[in-house]
């Protein structure tokens, strides 16, 4: 299979798709972490203020 002509195009296509999919997953997970962290910080500050 790997010796077939144009197999490089197949590898390049799958590699590109993999990179884009991993970038999508990474961006969404990173965003989730950032928003959860910000929400936790704000809720902690709010709870602290309400307690005083």
């Amino acid at each position, binding site marked *: 299979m790997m010796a077939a002509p*144009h197999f490089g195009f*197949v590898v390049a*296509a799958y590699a*590109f798709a993999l990179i884009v999919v991993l*970038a999508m997953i990474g961006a969404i997970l990173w965003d989730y972490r950032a928003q959860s962290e910000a929400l936790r910080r704000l809720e902690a500050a*709010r709870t602290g203020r309400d307690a005083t």
Partner: protein
Amino acid sequence: MWSFANPTVFLALTRRLLPGLALATAGLFALGLYLAFTAPPDYQQGETVRIMYIHVPAAWLSTFIYGVITLASLGTLVWRHPLADAAQKAGAPLGAAFTLICLVTGSLWGKPMWGTYWVWDARLTSVLVLFIVYLGLIALWRSIEDPGRAARAAAILTLVGCVDLPIVKFSVDWWNTLHQPASVFRLGGPTIAPELLWPLLVMALASTLLFLTLHLMAIRNEILRRRVARLTMLAAAEGDALSAPRLATRGLGA
């Protein structure tokens, strides 16, 4: 059904659904890739036909996601529902990413089969226009600060961009193009051999599940972002000793 449109209920639902969806997506991709690389090569295209197993699902998703965003846009314009806003905002980058995969893998398939990476043919050009519309939607969301106004503007642009969908679908029938006509969803049944069709269908299902999983995750992020924005404004309004001065400094610096 409508109870799921409540953001809090939606968050609880995604928490339960996401692990199973992610697992099913990974499993289907493993099966799909195994079938794709053990399927026989095409009698004309040889091994190059294996690009089809990622190109075609990405092409289907590029229009399917636009359809999802269009429905969400109607939800925004008709019911002004915040979850519809979040769904259309979360869908645009995913649609752009799958359309990019479709364009690049198609180009990599075109070079050995047609002798060129690109031609200004009706199918290729209409998909490029779809990609540009997706980028326009992302830019619009980023350029308007008020989420309600941004959602309405993006919804209108989405509905205008809808005109491109039938052009993408029927371009191969309406004009003479290098691109082959529909060979799976057509009257008279698929023209692809079952040995090649089954891996394609499994990969299409895996890609659709991937989109569904990522879309739910991205909608969840949008709901959290709105909560963060609301709490930040509340903190600033109440003269929070920690948050307000930081916001004011950022505002002056901008």
